[in-house]
């Protein structure tokens, strides 16, 4: 490199410098604005019914968001890596049920039943992941099959009846120093998700795999291992959500969490992730899950008829994402 030294290294020109500022505020927007949307939603509800903004009701919303949020955190890994996981609801039910069964029928100690339940989810997720990574099944099919299998096994184990959970699981439904444990679990799960996605090698690899699988593979990223990991994580988080449900109800239900998969995916997408992979954040997912919980809670508190509730929920979901779309278009141009 001799002759080239006459060339001055590329320096940012002034116009390029100017760019950096809006760039920063753009990033700010990505994280802040959906949150502002959430605040507006809360404000509207507060004006409509003062009962909404009470400490007690906000705790309610937090608790009610916790299940979907925890599932959605797990789903974020999968969606960032370009997949989808339809089995989270069923896996949550299976984990909760197997944990209760370990305690009630297999007489394991309570904490072991809790760990066993979590492992169940991890294994179920890893199985889906193997089917996707090594069996080359589309994620939609692999996890749809797991949805069916996990729900079936839940029914087989329980013989269709609820089973009482272990004290360790029930504890997840209680309060600690006035704060409901589900909210604490929610917070911890969110932080763990954010750290994994942002800071770890496997997390950054998820974005690469979701963004362009072939480019990731050719760069030496172990794509298959990443895929198995994301589904295993999703299963683990689903199991944790299953424990929360069982803990809050003091019993594992055979039909627990059915249909939750669509809510979890919706939370992730409302939070700004793209189903084509490579994009998504833990904070966005949290906001998405909170928006869903606030809508549900708000409609209950407002006393909207349950038939109309479904109509309104659909409209608000569409609106929330539409606002996000507008915002992005705004920051881009």
């Amino acid at each position, binding site marked *: 490199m*001799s002759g080239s030294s006459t060339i001055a290294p590329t320096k940012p020109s002034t116009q390029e410098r100017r760019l950096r500022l*809006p760039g920063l505020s753009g990033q700010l927007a990505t994280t802040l604005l959906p949150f502002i949307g959430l605040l507006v939603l809360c404000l509207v509800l507060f004006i409509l019914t003062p009962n909404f903004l009470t400490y007690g009701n906000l705790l309610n919303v937090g608790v009610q968001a916790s299940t979907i949020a925890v599932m959605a955190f797990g789903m974020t890994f999968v969606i960032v890596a370009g997949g989808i996981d339809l089995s989270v609801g069923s896996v949550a039910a299976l984990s909760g049920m197997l944990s209760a069964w370990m305690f009630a029928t297999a007489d394991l100690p309570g904490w072991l039943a809790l760990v066993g339940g979590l492992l169940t989810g991890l294994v179920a997720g890893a199985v889906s992941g193997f089917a996707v990574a090594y069996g080359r099944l589309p994620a939609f099919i692999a996890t749809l099959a797991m949805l069916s299998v996990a729900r079936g096994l839940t029914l087989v184990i329980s013989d269709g009846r609820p089973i009482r959970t272990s004290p360790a699981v029930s504890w997840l439904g209680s309060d600690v120093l006035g704060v409901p444990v589900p909210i604490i679990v929610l917070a911890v799960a969110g932080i763990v998700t954010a750290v994994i996605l942002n800071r770890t090698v496997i997390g950054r690899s998820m974005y690469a795999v979701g963004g*362009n699988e072939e480019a990731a593979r050719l760069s030496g990223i172990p794509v298959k291992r990443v895929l198995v990991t994301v589904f295993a994580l999703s299963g683990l988080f689903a199991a944790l959500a299953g424990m929360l449900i069982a803990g809050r109800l003091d019993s594992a239900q055979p039909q627990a969490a059915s249909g939750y998969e669509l809510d979890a995916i919706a939370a992730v997408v409302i939070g700004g992730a793209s189903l084509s992979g490579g994009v998504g954040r833990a904070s966005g997912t949290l906001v998405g899950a909170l928006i869903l919980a606030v809508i549900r809670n708000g409609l209950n508190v407002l006393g909207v008829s349950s038939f109309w509730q479904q109509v309104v929920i659909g409209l608000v979901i569409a609106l929330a994402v539409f606002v996000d779309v507008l915002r992005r278009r705004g920051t881009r141009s």
Partner: protein
Amino acid sequence: MTAAAPVPASEPSRSRTSVPAPAPVLTLDSVSKSFGPVDVLKDITVHVRPGRVQVLLGENGAGKSTLIKMMSGIYQPDGGRVVVDGKAVHLGSVRDAERLGIATIHQELNLVPSMTVAENVLMGRLPSRGGFVSRRTTRRLAREALDRVRLDVDLDTPVGQLGIARQQLVEIAKALSLNARVLILDEPTAALTGSETEVLFGVVEELRRDDVAMVFISHHLEEIAAIGDEVSVLRDGALVAEVPASTPEDELVRLMVGRDITEQYPRRTHTPGEEVLLDVRGLTRTGVLHGIDVQVRAGEVVGVAGLVGAGRTELLRAIAGADPYDSGTVHVDGQRLAPRSVGSAVAAGIGHVPEDRKGQGLVLDASVAENLGYATLAATSRAGFADRSGQRSRAQEVATRLRIRMRDVDQAARDLSGGNQQKIVFGRWVLAGSRVLLLDEPTRGVDVGARVEIYELINAVAAAGGAVLLVSSDLPEVLGVSDRVLVMSGGRLTGELPASTATQDQVMALAVKHADDDDHVAPSHGPEGSPS
């Protein structure tokens, strides 16, 4: 560019600049364009005249593609006017431009891989009656268009199964079949070898005779003299000069980069060692590769030449662990690599620049820094945590070294110009400090100045005891950069030449040899297979 390209010298009979310029069909009148706060183009005027080839010249990121996108209705100028036939027009969409007879071959391929060649050629204009596609007419029109670029492939082949070069030809055929008055060609030759380039230029000459107005972009300066008429030189989004295409290359380079480039192919001072660093033996993949032996010594640069479809890409991919192979071995520094494992290849020090930067090289939504750092993500981590600040500063360093033109390393790769994207893919392995580089068309779309940078880097790797296997369809490049040249044809090695003495004719002779001799394909027969 001193080496002669396989391009005919300009024919004396051509009209060129000898007659007064005809009135322009299309004019960009003082246009400017910005993305957000960045002014990409500033007050540029370009005329496109019938029977003339207007060349746009500039470094990577100078704004050439952005400029032609305003002619084809993809972008609308923020300031200034688009004038067609003397009237200011608004080109709101591709359709608008097509209606005015403006067709574009874009820098990036715009094909649907899963659809057939025929449908891709006529995409958006499938001949139909009452909403039903007329298949026979489709096939006929597609065949006609493909014949013009002498591309002889089955009309029913999914385009995704063709190599990049043939896809480029399909793309050209597609634009030609529009029978446009204005044809815009954005780096159409970047993915072509000399022979296809020649065919393309033949078509350009025909179009010139038919008074079609053309815009041509290329980083191969010798092509400008070969087919261009006038040249508009862009620098940093501003028009810095308008000169005739006959201007000497040195002068064009000076106008473009603002300095002289003395040596197109910088020579190395050291000689290769004796130790074989990359040792490939008997590599075979049924139907694709046949018993390939390649040895690259430490400090050596080996070029691989061949026609499109010779299997060069397949060879590199097999060595890099990207594709499986049926038999044979790959050793790096005496250590055998596991087949079909990119991970073990990267760990052994192999760096592979694939031929398709968008499809195989880049995560477009990720930042420049991320893209540069993928190969070192795991190696630089601690306890599973990525070394983000370290990666970022290393990426910054490499980006500066490769003169990647960007806002900052956090900009999304998607927003960079084509040549700068190509530099990212190369830079990944510079950052990783790879000892064995497998380069598949590493300078495609890269400007003259930056190409020299890449050659310097290749030399630096070799000087540090590395090994480089270079596939390129740019024959002067292969001859100028390599120590020796291997020639492939039909998935076999057909010969080896020392680069210092080899001529392009010798290489081409070897490149067509095998196909003619062993493959039982009559070379000069007309369109095979597909009737009608």
